[in-house]
């Protein structure tokens, strides 16, 4: 059965800290892995990863995929209170069939 597991489930840090969020997966016919940020409402797209070992970067956020070990990490450096959200990992398990993890709830305290 396809599954996507995120850890930790929740995390509390202070502004300026660096955090690493984890996503491991077991799926058939892996096509891509995506990271989303969900604040109060709908998820918003952060990154899409298809190739192993290539880092995607956007400002203070970066992500990398390891297809051999079947996991991805999302790093956030110099965290700000605006980074507080649920971070979701999703894997395209078969064509167009997306499987989401339960998410990591990040709280950044001033």
């Amino acid at each position, binding site marked *: 059965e396809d599954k996507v597991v*995120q850890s930790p489930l929740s995390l509390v840090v202070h502004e300026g800290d660096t955090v690493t969020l984890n996503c491991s997966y077991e799926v058939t016919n892996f096509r891509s892995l995506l990271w989303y940020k969900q604040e109060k409402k*709908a998820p918003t797209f952060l990154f899409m990863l298809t190739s192993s070992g290539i880092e995607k970067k956007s400002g203070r956020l970066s992500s990398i995929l390891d297809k051999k070990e079947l996991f991805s990490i999302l790093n956030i450096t110099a965290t700000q209170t605006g980074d507080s959200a649920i971070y979701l990992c999703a894997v395209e398990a078969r064509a*167009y*069939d*997306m499987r*989401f993890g339960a*998410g990591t709830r990040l709280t950044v305290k001033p």
Partner: protein
Amino acid sequence: NAGVTQTPKFRILKIGQSMTLQCTQDMNHNYMYWYRQDPGMGLKLIYYSVGAGITDKGEVPNGYNVSRSTTEDFPLRLELAAPSQTSVYFCASRNDRGNEQFFGPGTRLTVL
């Protein structure tokens, strides 16, 4: 562009009632999805569509039906509402290059 729109925003149903959640996108995307999100959980795929006239089941399709008669619209139908269908429902669309999904604002459904 309005993006992905969903109606209604909120709805309370009684057990056994039926309803249709509407989803429309104006980006000419072929791929559309319906998800449900239970409290503290990630999104679970209910149904998806790769183009007008083509739909397929996702992870949790039981109790739901969909249709895709046009590129723009992808309604989700609940025939006999049950308390287990209390959830937030998100519709999403994706472009042909498959780079990201665009989500609608969600419909919060409560079945009592």
